[in-house]
């Protein structure tokens, strides 16, 4: 294959990637009252009720006020639900309306399709995370202890859940199927993932059980980036996230190439 051909293929794929990402951004900003506003309101309620009212009764946790302690977890929770929710609803919506066929008949490579959808999910996760972070400033002072870890962890987490949302959307056959995983899997994992408490408060048996919850690793790694404290080893958490990203990416590509749920 000539280098000219490869260059033109690469250039065409980059245009296609930009197109998919731009379309995804256009989608979630067009429906901002459904995508950006609700998490902002929910998180403000968490800050007021858990952080302010109940938190005052709880006192310090891990050497920080309760509000300071839960802010990283709440930011992460909004990143997780929104990056997942964006991809699952956008991709399933495309399948439902059959507009996914526009992509399937075009020469866009599966890697570009996946990267486009995942980038859209990550960007919505980051946008909501940013909004929640700004809102948290009204309730507490936020200092970033380790910027590199913070950025890496938030990007990896958003990517992992965007990939998870993609798998959910591929297998989903109706709208119920795209709400089952968030309701019965994602929400319990997030609530039990150390957003509101340190696992050191749990009995040893439940501490060990909690370690298999992937959200615990993400929340603690992010909390380490912001506050400098973590219930688990940061190296283990980041390694786990890197492996999870690679495995999920591989699964998504296989699904796309096979055309599951898209080709007959």
């Amino acid at each position: 294959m000539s280098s000219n051909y490869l260059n033109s293929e690469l250039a065409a794929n980059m245009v296609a990637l930009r197109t998919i990402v731009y379309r995804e951004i256009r989608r979630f900003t067009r429906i901002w009252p459904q995508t950006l506003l609700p998490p902002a309101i929910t998180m403000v309620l968490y800050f007021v009720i858990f952080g302010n009212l109940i938190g005052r009764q709880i006192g310090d946790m891990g050497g920080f006020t309760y509000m300071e302690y839960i802010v990283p977890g709440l930011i992460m929770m909004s990143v997780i639900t929104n990056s997942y929710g964006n991809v699952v609803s956008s991709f399933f919506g495309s399948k439902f309306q059959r507009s996914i066929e526009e992509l399937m008949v075009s020469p866009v490579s599966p890697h570009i399709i996946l990267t486009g959808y995942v980038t859209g999910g990550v960007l919505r996760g980051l946008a909501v995370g940013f909004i929640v972070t700004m809102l948290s400033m009204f309730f507490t002072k936020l200092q970033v202890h380790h910027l590199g870890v913070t950025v890496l962890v938030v990007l990896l987490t958003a990517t992992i859940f965007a990939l998870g949302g993609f798998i959910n959307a591929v297998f989903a056959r109706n709208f119920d199927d795209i709400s089952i995983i968030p309701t019965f899997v994602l929400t319990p994992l997030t609530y039990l993932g150390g957003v509101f408490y340190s696992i050191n408060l749990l009995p040893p048996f439940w501490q060990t059980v909690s370690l298999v919850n992937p959200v615990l690793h993400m929340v603690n790694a992010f909390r380490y980036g912001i506050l400098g404290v973590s219930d688990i080893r940061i190296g283990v958490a980041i390694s786990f996230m890197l492996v999870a990203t690679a495995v999920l990416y591989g699964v998504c590509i296989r699904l796309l190439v096979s055309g599951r749920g898209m080709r007959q």
Partner: protein
Amino acid sequence: MSTALSIRQLTKTYGNGFQALHGIDLDVAEGDFYALLGPNGAGKSTTIGILSTLVTKSSGSVNVFGHDLDKQPSALKRCLGVVPQEFNFNQFEKAFDIVVTQAGYYGIPAKIAKARAEQYLTQLGLWDKHNVPSRELSGGMKRRLMIARALVHEPRLLILDEPTAGVDIELRRSMWSFLTELNQQGITIILTTHYLEEAEQLCRNIGIIDHGRIVQNTSMKDLLKTLHVETFLLDLKESLLVPPQLLGYAAQLLDHHTLEVQVDKNQGITELFRQLALQNIEVLSLRNKTNRLEELFVSLVEKNLAGAVV
């Protein structure tokens, strides 16, 4: 002239065991305007689905302008524009965005994509609706939007799966002239339609598919030549109570003013009119009972059905 599309021994068996295609062979020359006809469930949409990679073939080969579907799917897709039977665009997007986005999938930079979107939406009479969400467009506008979308990357082969279904006659005729113009510019067109008058008027060559097999593949001219008998309806000036005796013609009265006559192609209608004139029967107008292609189509499909039953 080179080959635009070459299909060899194409088969498709769906997961439920239904065999939609039984090893079809098909060639469409570059620049052709080709009609692919067949009754519902004959295999037309499966064939088009395989070409556009929305359906995975079971076996056989597909080649578009020398690009093999298995080996060079990306190059093949760049040559191909597909207008599907059902609306398959995002109903919440604006018409303009749909066309520009599709261009982006083909790697066309935004500036060129926007210019082309304007050009095709204008040509198809949709420019004044370019900022309207697609769900608010009428059925005919949605069909034209899909044509604009399929053309935006300037394909060499355009496949239209019933593009005029549900479109009023005025709009259908304007779409015919638009498609003819595209074909004259060198774009090879494959058309499936249930309006046989449309196929007869537009297409030079024709393939008829039935039960997953190509039962006819020839030029429109040659196919129409095989039609031995045509049925005409004659509107009579005076009312008749019994059908007239017409030597060599089978005739029956549909009502007192309408006479149906079967005319063998070797006989012609001059003799028919001579005999009617001798009997002082005045004819106000004459028309075909059905479209000529329709008569052939029905007879071919019925013959194939009879063969399948046996």
